[in-house]
């Protein structure tokens, strides 16, 4: 479904992504972890072209997303992206946040969009907050609305960029719960996260990144029980100590 072929990216002289060549299969739940500055966020942001690349190719559903004349907006409409900082639109209610894109992009009439948005908010447990503005919602609630908003476009892929890192600990669970049920429904997901419990329980595969390279990959069972690469061993040891 997603094919990365020798993807390279530079920030000035800094080599942020080094020759990444990997695949993500349909219905797969992939977790990307690693120390900060490893390039995990950069990598996930290249998938919906929030960041551009300096070399290599990225293909989604068999189409090169950097091809000349490629419709970036159509690409993004088919991929849901959940940000660390939620980025809900503060001047719109939760319901309106979820309705905006489907209506503006002519995917649904206003009535259909409203119905669908209510169903999604219900799915994330926030139907009773449909008329609330973001500043009246807790962090965990805002992030769940953000997930519903991304789902409203019926994407085939969902990308999560450290979705729980900005949350107080007691709210992390409610967001992970939503992500868990999404995975159970068979959504193709790529998650950058530090939540190792989630990775262990839900992920099909784990990529461990450091300094722009994927140093180790494998099933969660193998990765957590028997890490191979010295950096991965170090990383897990640090995590366990804390």
């Amino acid at each position, binding site marked *: 479904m997603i094919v990365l072929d020798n993807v390279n990216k530079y920030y000035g002289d800094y080599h942020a992504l080094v020759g990444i060549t990997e695949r993500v299969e349909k219905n797969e739940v992939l977790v990307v972890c690693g120390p900060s500055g490893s390039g995990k966020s950069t990598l996930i942001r290249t998938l*919906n072209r*929030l960041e551009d690349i300096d070399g290599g190719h990225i293909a989604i559903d068999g189409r090169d997303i950097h091809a000349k004349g490629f419709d970036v*907006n*159509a*690409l*993004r*409409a*088919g*991929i*849901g*992206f959940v*940000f660390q*900082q*939620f*980025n*809900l*639109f*503060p*001047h719109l209610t939760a319901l309106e946040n979820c309705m*905006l*894109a489907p209506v*503006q*992009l002519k995917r649904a009439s206003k009535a259909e969009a409203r119905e669908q948005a209510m169903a999604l908010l219900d799915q994330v447990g926030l139907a009773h907050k449909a008329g609330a*503005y*973001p*500043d009246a919602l807790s*962090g965990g609630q*805002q992030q769940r609305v*953000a997930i519903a*908003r*991304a789902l409203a*476009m019926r994407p085939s892929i969902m990308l999560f960029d450290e979705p729980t890192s*900005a949350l107080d600990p007691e709210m992390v669970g409610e967001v992970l719960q939503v992500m868990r049920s999404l995975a159970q429904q068979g959504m193709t997901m790529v998650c950058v996260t530090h939540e190792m419990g989630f990775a262990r329980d839900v992920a099909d595969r784990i990529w461990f990144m450091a300094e722009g390279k994927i140093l180790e990959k494998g099933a969660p069972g193998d990765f957590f029980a028997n890490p191979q690469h010295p950096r991965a061993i170090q990383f897990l040891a640090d995590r366990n100590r804390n």
Partner: protein
Amino acid sequence: MLELIDTYWLYFLVGQYPDGPLGGLVLTILLSGAALVLAMPLGLMLGIARVSRRRVVSLPVGAFVQLVRAVPLLLVLFWVYFFLPAVTGVKTSQAMTMLIVLVVFDSVYLAEIVAAGIRALPKGQLESARSLGLDYGQALRHVVLPQTLRHGLPSIVNQLVSTIKATSLGYIIGLSEVSFIATQINTLVFTRSVEVYLILALTYFLLCFGLSRLAFLLERRLQRRPVGAS
């Protein structure tokens, strides 16, 4: 002072109307309001152009803005007053001249307010709008500008205050705005200059101070609604 007000209050308020064109305080207020309203669409466009990533758009607009801000308003007023009739062939009234100049000036300052507001909006807002598949124009219309204008409202009210003060320059080209009328009254009465000009000052003060308090309260109200994750 009271008989002064009693005798001349109507003249102060509306000039020679209805026996002549509208003047006085009402003219000042109407001109300022009209100028700001007319300048909004232009200011919005210029502001968006200012933050455009295409330098062929942002640089000329930036140069124009800098140019207008480097020159006194009075000079622009003289240019328009002396040359517009020659260019258009139509003799423009002082009020129309003043209005045109005020619209140009207001749109430049409003452009700066809009541009600053767009730049101040967290990057994540535009990113999440684009991530949903909205194009730049849609993202501007539905996400960026509604927030920018809301946050910029106190600055816009302050711009109205500046415009009210700027209308006083119409005096110099003979526009019958409130300062001009005050001087006419002073010439008629002759011995009460201090009272006349204190009343003029007080009038401006009440109007402008009132509006800037409004702007201040708007700003306070905006700060009480924090937006998004810190």
